[in-house]
């Protein structure tokens, strides 16, 4: 599903050149639950942004569901993002003046689905996260955990193959964090690929694979080391 080879990302200003990712190679296959860990500023969010087609890569290759994203214009990338990916953010990023129903509706609107189809998917997604009865409530009327569940409902309403989560439990207390993780695990069990960025070792431990990023270089700490192929130079640096 996700195939990155020698991906690099460099931020350039007039004075400084910052290497956020260096020759990162990673393959994530069907049904996987991958945790990406690393210290602050290590490049894990940059990795997630590139994986989510929110940022351009500077070098390397990236195939998403077999599509070379370097060949796509903004419209095609947006469509691919809409159809294949779901996002869950640390700060939920719900739109405050839309109720839960309309928040979940946002990605479906850009897909051009019929009204009936959208309604069915929205109700199903809210049902899935246990908030169907609050569809007409606004985000400000919900707790943090509930808001994150709405964000998950929004992410899954379109039926994405890959769900990218950036510190999804970072703003939650431990009880709510457990609930959210349980939800993500259930989704994974039903076939959705999950890639979660976290710095919480407990969360990382619940994933099938752990990829550790330090200074933009990735190392697989999991049971399937063959799936991470850092370049020789990068491997030497990280080791």
């Amino acid at each position, binding site marked *: 599903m996700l195939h990155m080879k020698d991906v690099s990302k460099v931020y350039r200003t007039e004075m400084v050149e910052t290497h956020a990712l260096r020759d990162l190679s990673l393959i994530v296959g069907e049904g996987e639950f991958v945790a990406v860990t690393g210290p602050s500023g290590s490049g894990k*969010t940059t990795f997630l942004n590139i994986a989510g087609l929110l940022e351009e890569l500077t070098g390397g290759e990236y195939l998403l569901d077999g599509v070379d994203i370097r060949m796509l214009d903004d419209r095609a990338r*947006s469509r691919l993002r*809409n159809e294949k990916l779901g996002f869950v953010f*640390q*700060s939920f990023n719900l739109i405050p003046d839309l109720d839960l129903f309309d928040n979940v509706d946002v990605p479906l*609107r850009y897909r051009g689905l019929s009204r009936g189809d959208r309604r069915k998917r929205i109700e199903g997604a809210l049902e899935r996260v246990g908030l169907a009865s609050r569809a007409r409530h606004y985000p400000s009327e919900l707790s943090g955990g509930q808001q994150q569940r709405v964000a998950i409902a929004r992410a899954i309403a379109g039926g994405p193959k890959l769900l990218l989560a*950036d*510190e999804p439990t970072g703003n939650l207390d431990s009880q709510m964090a457990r609930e959210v993780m349980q939800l993500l695990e259930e989704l994974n069990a039903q076939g959705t690929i999950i890639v979660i960025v976290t710095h919480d070792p407990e969360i990382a431990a619940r994933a099938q694979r752990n990829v550790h990023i330090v200074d933009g270089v990735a190392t697989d700490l999991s049971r399937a080391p063959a799936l991470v192929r850092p370049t020789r130079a990068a491997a030497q640096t990280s080791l």
Partner: protein
Amino acid sequence: MFTYYLDLALRSLRRNRALTALMIVAIAFGVGASMTTLTVLHVLSADPIPGKSGDLYMVQLDPRQARGFIPGEEPPDQVTRSDGEALLRAGKAERQVVMTSGEAAIEPARAGLLPFFIEGRWTSADFFPMFGVPFVAGAPWTRDDDDRAARVAVIARALADKLFGTTDVVGRTLRTESSELRIIGVIDTWRPTPHFYDLHSQVYGREEQIFVPFSTSRELKLPRSGSQDCWDESPDPLALGAPCVWLQFWAELPGKARADAYRDFLFQYSLEQQRAGRFARPPNVRLRDVRQWLAFSEVVPDDARLQTWIAIGFLVVCLINTVGLLLTKFLRRSSEIGVRRALGASKRSIFVQLLVEAGMIGVVGGALGLLLAWLGLWAVRHQPADYAPLARLDLPMLVATFGLAVAASLIAGLLPAWRGCQVTPAIQLKSP
């Protein structure tokens, strides 16, 4: 998708009511001021006779004395009675008409109605078909009536109503200047604006109430109004052969070939008059159609043009303010834009969404601008200018007001919407 964008725009506008109100007011004032002055300009510069203005020509000859001659000088914009009647007799155009404005004292037969003065036109038979004057009863007089100075008149609906309480007055008698005229036709309300065929009387003045054959007016010595220009002493400036210009002469010449031929005819006529000793100057003729004639005569007052430019400048200032406010509004929503981009919105979708929002401000601003334009025109109508009563919004200007408001707000929204759609989603979504 458009209805979705409309819904989002409505929500967004409600969210920042003060900012929204500021933008709407800015657009409304700019549009209101512009449309007030543009409407006045539109009224003043409108084609007074659409469909025919290209075929109707104002005739100018130069019968003046040799003294003061400057080659290429503009000839007088009126003709002498001798030339007017000669050109009429020649009949070289499809239709031709000689005329002057006049005044008549009406002596009503109706009890309780005192004598009163009205404005009129002493002209020839082709006047009515040539200028497309609408009749509600009867018909124009004929060329034969012109030849025999028939005691007939065509009157306006308003005069018929005033004198008889009806427009069914054909055959009745009208008493004016101690003479009796038989009413042979009643015209509907007709007020070409500007009063193109005679700019010597009020350009945007009141409508004429009575029309009498020119020949009849001379026999009855009906008083005339308007200017006259004499270059020599004359006991009667209005007499045949008097060295005075005081008549307008118009010719209907469909097609350029007819106009060119008529111009040649006028040249030859002038040459003949010069050879005969009547004209002291070499042939100097002009033939301008209605639009050319109005442009040459500069009938639109300079202050109307100046006010329009000032108002458009004001609109530009309002638009610049709106650009700033929209920019602020859209960039404050970078986070939402980032979320939408992450969830599948393309840059184009965001651009259209934001532009719809700007357009909605334009529609509301246009409605308010319309009200302000209406108030502005009401104020213009109370100015002491002869065109003031004409300053009213017609359907094209009503549509133009909305069009201008929406176009202005869309233009104002282009830069902010473009900046909005360039928001980098990754930055906006970054966890705190």
